[in-house]
């Protein structure tokens, strides 16, 4: 019996102590890719969240119903894998008992992660996921980014105008929900506007591929006016270089997954002059957006990409929801429920990536921008497209 007592006592005392110590905190979980394919995305998410937390905790905490609560952010690594995103979400919901989860970032993890949060009745908001399935028929899941059905046509219209394009080629990652979904939306929209055979080449590649020469040879032989690449930044760097090696001199058009500060270190001169659609343009920003960029730059030493800004917005949406619901203590289930209702009820949110409000699917209605990569490697605003 004695042997049994000790761990039980130890456990109970830790439990009570933690209640005493953290009784006045609000816990929010972050389900982000700190390692794996896109570690920079996770890092920027974490840094933006840390900045927000420090700012609010320095003021004594988040003001809810006249009382201040300290924020506690818990970062869980999902290794940029679908299955790890599920484990990370479960860990945050059950072990850490968070009020809400911010993340996962890319659709590959956000689609399965959203399912877990919806099943466990925990509010989740994905900063960066653009695939419709993330929030579809899931009342507990929200997002801060626009959707691919909106982004796809933006790319189509911009390319038709800028490159005078009548024929396009697509190269996408088969194992990535984001890339595959966006490629399909782009193909359907482009064919609708330019005729049935206007997509002259529609190629894919697998996980961890590094050689794209066969696909690119096929694409270049089909003579498209431009190549659409809805891929992660690390693959973009390799694809663009290899295409140039194979003699391609035409333009590329990319999507929001390009917008990472690591793109230019990996890609260098090859990526200069290319266009992609994204959530915000860091170069030439004004107002609160500029203030965020300047503070981030001063603190961490580089320009934040869209994912940092979107995480900032997503976390602030959660905080605004907490303030609106006014409930922090009490039964966790009830608190989560009132938080969900409060987020769904936000009439207009003024974020640093633009004004937005949620539709009944939990998706924001907001604008997209198209940026050009300048010769200095900056992402320069070219045009803004609103729904």
């Amino acid at each position, binding site marked *: 019996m004695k042997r049994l007592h000790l761990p039980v006592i130890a456990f109970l005392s830790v439990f009570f102590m933690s209640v005493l110590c953290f009784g006045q905190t609000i816990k929010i979980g972050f389900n982000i890719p700190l390692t794996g394919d896109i570690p920079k995305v996770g890092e920027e998410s974490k840094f933006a969240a840390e900045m927000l937390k420090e700012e609010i905790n320095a003021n004594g905490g988040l003001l809810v119903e006249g009382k201040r609560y300290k924020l506690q952010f818990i970062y869980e690594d999902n290794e940029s894998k679908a299955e790890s995103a599920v484990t990370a979400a479960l860990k945050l919901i059950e072990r850490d008992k968070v009020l809400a989860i911010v993340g996962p970032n890319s659709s590959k993890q956000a689609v399965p992660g959203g399912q877990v949060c919806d099943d466990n009745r925990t509010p989740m908001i994905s900063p960066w996921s653009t695939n419709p399935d993330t929030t579809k028929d899931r009342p507990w899941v929200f997002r801060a980014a626009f959707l691919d059905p909106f982004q796809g046509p933006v790319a189509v219209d911009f390319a038709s105008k800028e490159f005078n394009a009548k024929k396009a080629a697509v190269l996408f990652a088969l194992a990535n929900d984001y890339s595959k979904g966006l490629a399909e939306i782009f193909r359907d929209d482009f064919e609708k506007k330019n005729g049935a055979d206007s997509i002259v080449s529609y190629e894919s590649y697998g996980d961890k591929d590094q*050689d794209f020469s066969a696909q690119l040879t096929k694409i270049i032989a089909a003579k498209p006016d431009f190549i659409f690449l809805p891929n992660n930044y690390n693959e973009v760097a390799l694809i663009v270089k290899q295409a140039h090696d194979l003699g391609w001199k035409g333009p590329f058009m990319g999507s929001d997954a390009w917008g990472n500060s*690591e793109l230019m270190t*990996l890609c260098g001169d090859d990526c200069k002059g290319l266009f992609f659609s994204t959530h915000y343009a860091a170069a030439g920003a004004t107002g609160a957006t500029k203030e965020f960029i300047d503070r981030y730059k001063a603190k961490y030493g580089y320009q934040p990409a869209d994912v940092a800004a979107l995480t900032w917005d997503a976390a602030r949406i959660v905080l605004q929801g907490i303030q609106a619901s006014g409930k922090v203590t009490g039964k966790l289930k009830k608190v989560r429920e009132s938080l969900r209702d409060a987020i769904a009820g936000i009439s207009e949110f003024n974020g640093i990536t633009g004004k937005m409000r949620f539709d009944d699917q939990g998706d924001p209605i907001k604008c997209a921008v198209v940026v050009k990569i300048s010769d200095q490697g900056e992402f320069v605003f070219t045009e803004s497209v609103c729904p």
Partner: protein
Amino acid sequence: MTASIIQNIFNALQWGSFYSLIALGYTLVYGVLLLINFAHGDIFMVGAYISFFVATFLLGGYAFGPPFGLPGWMVLGLTIPLTMILTSVVGVTLERVAYRPLRRKGANRLYVVITALMCGIILENGNLAILGASRKSYPELVDKVVYTFGSITVTNLKIGVILSSILVFAILQFIITKTKIGMAMRAISYDKFAVPLMGIPIDTIIVFTFVLGSSLAGFAGILFALSYPVLDPFMGALIGWKAFIAAVVGGIGDIRGAFLGGFLLGFVEIGVVAFFPSTYRDLIAFTILLIILCIKPTGLFGVAKTTKV
């Protein structure tokens, strides 16, 4: 059409070169020790990283770099031998720390194979823990020149990769068939118990095998990093597995088999993408390899033996 076929032949030769170079390392170790060194793909990754650090160091990218600036070709000329030496040190260390103690204790080969798998995982995650998850961008050591003939384009790098892999194979073939140490290696693979009785130092030969195999992996790492200049800790896993398959299809234990098997896999992969929708690449490519193995289970050059792993 012909133009794109010729273009794809060049693509396949380049891509097959990497499979060949890595498969040669698998097959060397297997030929001598009958050990499938599953850490080999990760030794290749370590080689790429070592060459990254050596090249950055020689280019003066670090505070403690050489005081004089070196031109790109000289940096490359120094990077290749340095990387090969350092990578073979890693390979030999693995042999000393992980494989030799097990061999001394007379452990079944199965356990050594599992140990090799674990070593691979340690290398990957050790790299991840030490260097962090962000990717490295390899410096451009060679001024890239694009040659265009009609609608066919090749770069000097592509030609360099293909030629050097053929050259490496020729050197290796010479060592194995024409030198005394090569003869000793073949003798060990023939009969591990009788050879020490003839006064051949078996451990020295095994170390030499690991030096050869790992320095090949290091060399492949340099060429790979030059061609695909984005390095990450898990880059060696998949290509290592596929190269192992290439070695098996070629007939594991025979270096001609590994060399041709590597190119065969490169041609099959590129060819499938060229003529079928790329979505089915791995499905069709590996079905073809499976059929080859069904017809000839020992691989193209393999000899049937009574015991296999």
